[in-house]
């Protein structure tokens, strides 16, 4: 069967079961837009290409399947560089297709020419410039393979216009062996010897912590993680990228560690004698000053990307492998050493089962295991002494944390929450209760303002049956709000809660704390723009909320809207700061708990 390159491209996407493309056409990609008219694939026309990229990311976050975006050459392509960089940082599988000028014009500074493979080389897992239409099916199959296996990540396929127009003989690579990827061999299974070593270390530890990262979600290992925690009775911290990987309501859940993590999560890691790092990469926002991070801890580091092992912190046991498989192997190893029964922390403390040998077969190596009781008791004491706190005064300024808590309590437990970047993101992560995986979507590694609105649209497209709430900042909202036009036009009913503090709040917080309250270029204004009118102009419902009493009724009203987007303008206290906080570059031991502690709120 003869097809044009463009037809082959769309057909290849169909073969990969792509259900939606987020994109915006232009000259160089024109041929590829024509066969879309005849394809069952839904195309969502964005208002800015950055939106297409973040939508693809949001879709991938909640479905685990690669999100697809398609844009034209030159400025279309450069507009999507930020989402590619964002996806690279957070290991999100997206496939971006860019149009390119005809092969004969490449290198001549032709109209809308941009060497996008060169530009994106360092922010993609891999990219391809297709020079022969006959290669298209194979390259598309390779792109999906690379994006979605091993450590997932973004890929880009650049397709010159003459290649799209050229004829080719259709085929479809039926297996991986027909792909031309001689250098691509992602690891999956852990080295059994290392896994046994890890199991032994776990049985020797008296102050262990599981440090769960985004890799747990990428590997679909939430069930295995829960089993590991319950079997061993080890408490779990979930990083910003791993929120939802372990239920926050579980007795062994310690919540988020890091710069704005809670005191217990941060301090438990600092005092631990063993860190079991699963799909986590010792990001500087988690470790604080690396040399002072978890100084007494031995480390078991499991990651599918060998380059993460030893990159920041040397581990006593390094295991290359997929988190789900390695946890499975670890559980079998633990059973072989005699640890067969669950020893859930809380139940163990209550039932006195956490003593020496809890859950272990008699006379097995596991029966000599240290008692985790004192460790859990210490953790409970920290939790009690240093909970997350804020105070919503009656009639006082509306506290952002209060908005998050009411929203949490008034929405279904499996609501998908999508955050922007800034204070509101941290409050959302801190105050939401994530009990299900893939319900938290945010930009962690890159910290891309403007992520929330488009990513929430992508998430809603991927999970239309779930309620999707973006918790956004006023600054962030202004960066990509135009995509609500897309959402209205396409009837994608996302809801956006703007925590409008009239400031680039996170930057303001740093200026307050570290630049002697010298506020430089952080004031935005609560009323400019008028978010309600703006929402209405974009076909959405707009609601303004100025006091605590109005919060619940307004959310109820928003929850009732199901045929269009909703934007809620919550006028929150501009002076509220995110605590706890570990100042950048400081040791995690120097955590500042809150304004009540120490002078000047530090």
């Amino acid at each position: 069967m003869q097809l044009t390159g463009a037809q082959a491209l769309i057909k290849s996407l169909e073969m990969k079961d792509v259900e939606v493309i987020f994109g915006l056409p232009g000259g160089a990609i024109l041929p590829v837009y024509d066969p879309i008219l005849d394809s069952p694939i839904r195309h969502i026309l964005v208002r800015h290409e950055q939106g297409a990229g973040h939508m693809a990311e949001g879709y991938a976050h909640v479905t685990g399947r690669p999100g697809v975006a398609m844009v034209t050459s030159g400025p279309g392509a450069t507009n999507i560089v930020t989402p590619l960089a964002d996806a690279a940082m957070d290991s999100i599988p997206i496939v971006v297709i860019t149009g390119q000028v005809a092969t004969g014009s490449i290198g001549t500074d032709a109209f809308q020419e941009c060497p996008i493979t060169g530009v994106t080389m360092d922010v993609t897992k891999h990219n391809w410039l297709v020079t022969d239409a006959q290669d298209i099916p194979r390259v598309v199959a390779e792109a999906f393979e690379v994006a979605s296996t091993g450590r997932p990540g973004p890929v880009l396929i650049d397709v010159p216009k003459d290649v799209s127009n050229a004829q080719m003989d259709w085929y479809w690579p039926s297996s991986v062996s027909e792909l031309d990827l001689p250098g691509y061999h992602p690891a999956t299974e852990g080295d059994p010897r290392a896994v046994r070593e890890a199991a032994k270390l776990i049985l020797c530890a008296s102050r262990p912590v599981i440090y769960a990262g985004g890799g747990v979600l990428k590997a679909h290992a939430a069930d295995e993680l829960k089993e590991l925690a319950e079997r061993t009775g080890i408490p779990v911290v979930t990083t910003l990228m791993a929120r939802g990987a372990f239920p926050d309501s579980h007795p062994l859940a310690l919540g988020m560690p890091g710069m704005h993590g809670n005191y217990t999560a941060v301090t438990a890691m600092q005092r631990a004698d063993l860190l079991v790092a699963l799909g986590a990469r010792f990001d500087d926002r988690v470790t604080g000053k690396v040399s002072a991070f978890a100084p007494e801890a031995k480390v078991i580091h499991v990651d599918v990307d060998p380059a993460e092992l030893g990159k920041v912190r040397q581990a006593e046991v390094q295991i290359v492998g997929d988190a789900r498989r390695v946890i499975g192997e670890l559980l079998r190893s633990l059973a072989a050493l005699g640890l067969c029964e669950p020893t859930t922390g809380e139940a163990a403390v209550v039932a006195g089962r956490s003593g020496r040998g809890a859950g272990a077969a008699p006379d097995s190596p596991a029966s000599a295991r240290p008692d985790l009781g004192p460790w859990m008791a210490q953790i409970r004491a920290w939790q009690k002494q240093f909970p997350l706190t804020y105070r919503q005064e009656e009639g006082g300024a509306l506290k952002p944390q209060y908005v998050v808590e009411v929203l949490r309590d008034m929405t279904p437990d499996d609501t998908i929450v999508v955050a922007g970047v800034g204070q509101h993101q941290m409050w959302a992560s801190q105050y939401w209760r994530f009990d299900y995986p893939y319900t938290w979507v945010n930009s962690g590694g890159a910290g891309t303002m403007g992520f929330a609105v488009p990513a929430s649209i992508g998430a809603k497209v991927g999970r239309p049956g779930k309620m999707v709430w973006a918790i956004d900042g006023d600054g962030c909202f202004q960066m990509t709000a135009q995509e609500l036009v897309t959402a209205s036009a396409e009837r994608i009913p996302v809801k956006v809660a703007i925590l409008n503090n009239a400031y680039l709040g996170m930057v303001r917080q740093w200026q307050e704390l570290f630049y002697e309250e010298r506020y430089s270029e952080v004031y935005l204004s609560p009323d400019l723009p008028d978010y309600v009118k703006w929402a209405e102009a974009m076909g959405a419902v707009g609601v303004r909320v100025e006091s605590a009493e109005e919060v619940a009724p307004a959310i109820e009203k928003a929850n009732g809207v199901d045929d269009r987007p909703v934007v809620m303008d919550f006028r929150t206290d501009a002076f509220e700061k995110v605590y706890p906080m570990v100042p950048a570059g400081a040791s995690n031991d120097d955590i500042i708990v809150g304004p009540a502690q120490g002078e000047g709120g530090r």
Partner: protein
Amino acid sequence: MKAPVRHHIVSARVENKAGVLVRVSGLFSRRGFNIYSLAVAPTHDERFSRITIVVDVESAPLEQIVRQLDKLVNVVEIAELAPEEATERELLLATVRAAPADRGQVIALVGVFEGTIVDVGLDAMTVLLAGSPSKIDDFEALIRPFGIIELQRTGRVALPKLARRAARLRAVPSGESHEVS
């Protein structure tokens, strides 16, 4: 005690495709690793090239450099060649001042080092020497006083020494199974 090794040789077999060298060298600059020298040419199998990179291990741990390089989709195989277990060669071309009165001395020096004189001008000669990097260093030091007009070294190429016991190619861990998505 042995003197600390500052340089390591990384030998990578890469796909012979457009842009691969940029990906490899780009990775060094992006990660802040230093390249001391780099040589690249196709292998006997035209689908692949071999890149021999001498890296400055003070800029980053070797293991980290190797593992990051191995992640590049076009890098097929990568190994560290420990200097004592590798056969290394480099080539030098130099145009040296050699007025008729000095010619004899230059010719003698080239002879001692088993180099070749490849071009002779009125008051200069171009000489060629292939050999181990340290031999090239010595030769360069000795011709320098005559006055070097131009000098070009290739950077080293290397292969593992043949196994009298198994060659210690430090392969990077990678799984054998390759999953279909």
